[in-house]
């Protein structure tokens, strides 16, 4: 697909001819092991951004022996520039519910929970209403499983899976030490599958259409399609479901305004791809992975301001427990400000890059580890804009 346009796909939002409860009913006639094989075969990876193979996650949790297990749908969509999960929950919530139920059946859980971002509380009444019907539907088909809503309170860090468990348990939202991983000890210390909203819908669709069809799309490392949240300097801002495997160039050709100088892939915690690397960078696990956020910047934008915004965000949203993240974020932010003002020499940027690299290996969780992504990519590619 070297020079072709990104291929639009309609899997996630497709509702026509789909009765989610029916799909669950059909699916649970298969054995859990068969479902897991199907998931593994499909090559589906987590759509939240980290990209852990979904089938393996289910398998690990299924293999744990415990009377209580949980399925949690991570709907704490807090990454700047991401808004796909809101759209999915708004338009096709039953498909999300069904994905949770299939997962629950597969791993042997009796309870599923949706952790909804605090700012999305306006969705709660509708979701609760639909859940009542859905839970009734599950009862009718004889599946001992029910789903409940949980609401976050607006902390970005609570999207990190173990901080999310802490938050759900009524504690301060701080990431835990790993291991143990959620598949062994997650919510309430029990084996837990925690999947992104979109992942669960794909899992549902794979259960419906089979892994072969899913696998046809995408590349070896990045199977299937993905919902993108497109924003910034683009005439086509919004949600698009696209086949994986395109280059940033193909994406920009389709969505750019003709003057795109950089694309921030994966939100604030993702990497920045400058124009000179559009052609060689594939959007996906072989290139630059993304949870779906694509922010386009044209030449009118100051990349200093972009980076400054991100760092302010991380400085505020770090939970504050670990040193590299709590202090590191502040130092990066104050550091580029000092350079801009002339209080620190441009050479200090190298010290800050080293700091970012230490954060990447030494921070406790994904938040602190990923601050280096935007920092190093923006500073390396737009050094002049940062300094002058």
């Amino acid at each position, binding site marked *: 697909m070297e020079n072709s346009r990104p291929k639009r796909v309609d899997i996630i939002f497709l509702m026509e001819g789909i009765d989610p409860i029916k799909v669950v009913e059909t699916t649970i006639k298969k054995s859990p092991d068969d479902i897991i094989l199907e998931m593994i075969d499909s090559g589906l990876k987590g759509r939240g951004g980290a990209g852990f193979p979904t089938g393996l996650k289910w398998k690990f949790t299924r293999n744990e022996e415990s009377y209580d297990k949980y399925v949690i749908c991570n709907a704490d969509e807090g990454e700047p520039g991401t808004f796909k999960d809101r759209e999915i929950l708004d338009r096709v919530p039953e498909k999300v519910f069904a994905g949770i139920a299939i997962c629950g059946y597969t791993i042997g859980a009796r309870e599923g929970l949706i952790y909804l971002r605090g700012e999305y509380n306006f969705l709660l009444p509708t979701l609760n209403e639909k859940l009542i019907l859905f839970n009734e539907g599950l009862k009718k088909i004889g599946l001992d499983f029910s789903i409940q809503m949980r609401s976050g309170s607006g902390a970005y860090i609570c999207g990190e899976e173990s901080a999310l468990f802490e938050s759900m348990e009524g504690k301060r939202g701080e990431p835990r030490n790993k291991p143990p991983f959620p598949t062994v000890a997650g919510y309430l210390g029990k084996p837990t599958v925690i999947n992104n909203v979109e992942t669960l819908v794909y899992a549902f669709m794979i259960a419906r259409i089979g892994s072969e069809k899913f696998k046809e799309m995408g590349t070896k490392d990045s199977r299937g399609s993905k919902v993108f949240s497109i924003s910034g300097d683009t005439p086509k801002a919004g949600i698009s479901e696209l086949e994986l495997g395109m280059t940033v160039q193909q994406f920009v050709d389709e969505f750019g305004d003709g003057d795109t100088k950089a694309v921030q892939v994966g939100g604030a915690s993702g990497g920045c791809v400058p124009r000179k690397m559009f052609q060689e960078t594939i959007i996906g696990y072989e290139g630059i992975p993304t949870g779906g956020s694509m922010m386009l910047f044209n030449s009118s934008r100051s990349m200093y301001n972009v980076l400054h915004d991100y760092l302010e965000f991380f400085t*505020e949203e*770090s939970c*504050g427990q670990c040193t*590299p993240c709590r202090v590191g974020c502040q130092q990066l932010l104050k550091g580029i400000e000092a350079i801009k003002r002339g209080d620190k020499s441009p050479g200090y940027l190298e010290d800050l890059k080293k700091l970012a690299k230490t954060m990447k290996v030494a921070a406790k969780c994904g938040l602190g580890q990923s601050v280096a992504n935007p920092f190093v990519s923006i500073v390396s590619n737009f050094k002049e804009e940062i300094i002058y």
Partner: protein
Amino acid sequence: MSKYLVNLSVNDIPVSVPEGTTILAAAKKLDFKIPTLCYHEDLCVAGNCRVCVVEQVGARALVAACATPVSEGMQIHTNSATVRTARKTIIELLLSEHNADCTKCYKNGNCELQSLAHEYRVGEHVFIDLVNGKHRVIDDLSPSIIKDDSKCIRCQRCVRTCDELQGVSALTVAYKGDLQKISTFLGHPLAEVVCTNCGQCVNRCPVGALVEKTYVEEVWNAINNPNKHVVVQTAPAVRVAIGEELGYNPGERLTGKMVTALKRLGFDSVLDTDFTADLTILEEGTELLTRLKRALVDKDTRVALPMTTSCSPGWIKFIEHTFPEFLPNVSTCKSPQQMFGALAKTYYAQKKGLKAQDICVVSIMPCTAKKYEANRPEMRSSGYKDVDFVLTTRELGMMIKQAGINFHNLEDSQYDSFMGESTGAGVIFGVTGGVMEAALRTVYEVVTGREVPFKNLDILPVRGMEGVREAKVKIEGCLPEWKFLDGIEVSCAVAHGLANARKLMQAVKDGSAHYHFIEIMACPGGCLGGGGQPIPTNEEIRAKRATAIYREDEGLPLRKSHENPEVKMIYEEYLGAPNSNKSHALLHTHYLARRRY
């Protein structure tokens, strides 16, 4: 812990450790020290300072050695280039948000961050100073503890101490990101929240963010004031720990040298809190017997049983906040420290021909809550503060160093008399279970005329480091006046550490546990693990101090409080009898129900 062995290598040296062992412990087994800050043996693992990061071959990121269990075939490098860079960077980051005014800091010389900065030779700070320009509060309103946010490195040892070890939760984490801090309820001063002043946080703070409020200068001033007669009393647990401040290994008994040092410091009289510990046993024992009599003979249903001890001021503040409905159950006896102060300014003053206002009572305590206790408004039996200044074991160490005393070469000497005599029963007040043991030694003998039926007077069931312990002592063959107790099995419980105290009291409240007498000490291990004891204090060190206290008990000719000749003398000369009117005026107190937050 599982018996399965896991094989791994640390710095290319193979080692086998039981499954579940951390990398930190595995490395220690090979004598590789991995630096730590947020880690403390007494607490759950936090893994948040990241100073202990090590390289695991094949892993994407470094791992925290304190928080990561070993796995088969793991290859760990504790000092690789990546590790060194990361570790040094982390120390530099901590210093950038730490008010590193080291030479003026109270903890100068005993600061874990300072040691690390020194070890890694962190020179000029690379990073931007984050201390200035932030609103930082120094809370010095508590008579016991000073909290300085500008020195805090957010390791959360204090939070974990306050929560899991003490069950108090006065300290907690507030806000996030750059604003994250250790706070109290709504940021109120420590003096106005549920803080019990136990000082366990002070004992665990790796830096100078939480320290005791020192009264060393005030004490020097009193010593140097020719118009003041300065009396010093030393708590039982100090004598087995002071050595740690002065270069000895934990567990050294240094009573004689300590007394000599105190005399050389210029105190006019060096006396012993153990004397009033013995006195406490007579007062408290009598109180217990009176309560039992009222309950069993007079069938008075208003008698509050079980009776609990009242020696530990941390425990007193805790029950005032947490179980105020049980305040009638607390013995009305003042703590030995306060009994001593009250008597020093009355009995002692009278005998020495001194006026109460000319006497300054200083106590050396293993405790920070004692500083608070001495300031309680009800503790003024003579019309003046019972106890003027309270110093911790650490502060005594400081004074000895300041005075240039070569402690190691000192001869032993004896406490002054009177109010300096003590028995082994008074000494064991310093260890959890000790008050119970001392009380049983006396009460049993008072009631039956015979010694407690335990070999060598060692009441082993109440000893040990189990968080909550129970013991039953059957009373048989009573003297005629105590006939009502014949055949009764006195049921006792002992708890140490306030989290255990909470458990025990909750069981009493639920009605799931029934006792006659409960001993509670606020600090883990009892006073020997007090918040004012040398830093570090941990399980191993507490065990050594406990052994030393029991040795001290064994070595004394008198081991039962009621045999203390000076105690007999004070009843004959001054107080009359235990729980007499005079005793009540001087040696007993009352308590106050406090808010739950």
